[in-house]
């Protein structure tokens, strides 16, 4: 390959990377953390069709994406948010520095889930088609509602996955949303056993963590 061509390729790659993040002229640590976010976004993008069940299950791709996210999560993320780097090109809200422990907790949770995704990578993405998994969604949802006693949810119809109390916010939804876990663990779920979970379920948890963080610490949408 001639040097001109190599230079051209290198230049194109650099420009592509720049375009991806420099929509608002971020520099230094702000730019660095934006690049990390973009890398995580792209990892999520690559897996989304598979997690929706529209692409074949690919354990290697899942593990790669999990690794990419884990690499930019946890401390790797929080060290890129030194005090006084909000405003300007940054989308970070002041809340990042007003509640640093909450921010760090979410960053760490993201790292745990991302590493968990690597462990769950071999598990088929669609548990309802896997008769041996023992964690079929419909079954677990049914159990979750049962403990409500008087208000037994019907097996179909609006809101069948939740009890009346859960729909009204009187009781936490967890009983229903931990449906991916074995029944014995549904009560106390300190550290989920990622290796026994469907990859799509761990992926969903990553999304929840992202949303919790974005909702509180990112301005815009």
């Amino acid at each position, binding site marked *: 390959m001639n040097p001109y061509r190599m230079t051209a390729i290198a230049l194109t790659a650099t420009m592509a990377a720049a375009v991806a993040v420099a929509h608002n002229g971020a520099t230094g640590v702000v730019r660095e953390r934006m690049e990390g976010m973009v890398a*995580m*976004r*792209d*990892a*999520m*993008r*690559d897996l*989304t069709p598979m*997690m*929706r069940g*529209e692409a074949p299950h690919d354990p290697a791709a899942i593990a790669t994406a999990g690794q990419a996210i884990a690499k930019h999560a946890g401390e790797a993320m929080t060290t890129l948010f030194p005090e006084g780097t909000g405003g300007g090109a940054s989308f970070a809200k002041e809340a990042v520095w007003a509640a640093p422990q909450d921010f760090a907790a979410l960053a760490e949770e993201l790292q745990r889930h991302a590493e968990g995704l690597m462990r769950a990578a071999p598990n088929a993405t669609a548990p309802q088609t896997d008769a041996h998994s023992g964690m079929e969604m419909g079954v677990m949802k049914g159990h979750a509602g049962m403990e409500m006693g008087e*208000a037994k*949810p*019907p097996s179909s*119809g*609006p*809101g*069948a*996955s*939740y009890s*009346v*109390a*859960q*729909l*009204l*916010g*009187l009781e936490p*939804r967890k009983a229903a949303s931990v449906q991916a876990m074995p029944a014995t663990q549904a009560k106390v779920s300190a550290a989920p056993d990622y290796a026994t979970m469907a990859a799509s379920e761990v*992926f*969903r948890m990553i*999304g*929840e963590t*992202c*949303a*919790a*963080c*974005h*909702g509180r610490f*990112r*301005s*815009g*949408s």
Partner: protein
Amino acid sequence: MRGLLRSVILLAALTGGGYAGLRAWPIGEDASRITLDGDARRGAYLARAAGCVACHTDTAAQGPAMSGGAPLDTPFGSFVPPNITPDFTHGIGGWSKDDLARALREGISPDGQPYYPAFPFEFYAGFSDQDIADLWAALATVPPVAETRGKNDMRFPFSMRSGLKLWRATALLEAESAPVLGRSDDWNRGRELVEGAAHCGACHTGRGLLGGLDADSFGGNDDLPGGSAAPSIRAADLKEDGWTASALAYALETGITPSGDVFGGSMAEVVEQGTSFLDEADRRAIATYLLDAAPVPSDPDALAQLR
């Protein structure tokens, strides 16, 4: 500047129209008489879909369900979603089904006062008597909470509720969520949710100077309370951004978008406290409708900029 303009418009209208006359101006339809029995489960699902639970509960502060929400800061002042538990003093314990119907469908309190449109009653105009009876039955299962968590803090002149009667006469835009003959059940269910209960337009439709909804819906709004921004959700724009029906349904369940980004801002709350509770069939219906909604009408709307 916009804030000043808003005040000037309203004040001019108030002095011109006569404040006393405005106060005496009766609003609302004749009272309905709802005698239907409600289904608490259906009502609870509707309360979830319509955002009653999300807005009237201060989840971040771990407030009791329905006992009052987090303040919504707007250019008109700060709105605090009130206590809607069945407490007689602090909540809506003394309300009848008909009171609930009037509040939701017309935006009028039991004592005849107009509600601010921060309460998205315009979207609830199409609720059936059965919907109201169901909601009433669901709210009756909520434990009363004897507490008022906060009060509205409105800027003058918006603090004068009777000014809202002028707003109602000029800017109120009731949702059109009724089914359309010749469309699929799925599409019509999506329409009922998108245009009605789920009130997508409250954020995704632009608003005029006085907070009235744009007649051209779903074009997006970059100027939401709390610094949030809502993109256009018109079919053409959604498709251009790579959205498919299954991608939309999945995002409404998980927050994860086709670009790999995950919703933040108010949409994170909409998903967590709202659409993730919906049945998959309803999320699909919303997606079906959004991706196949009628083209935006192009008639110029003279009032659009002011309301």
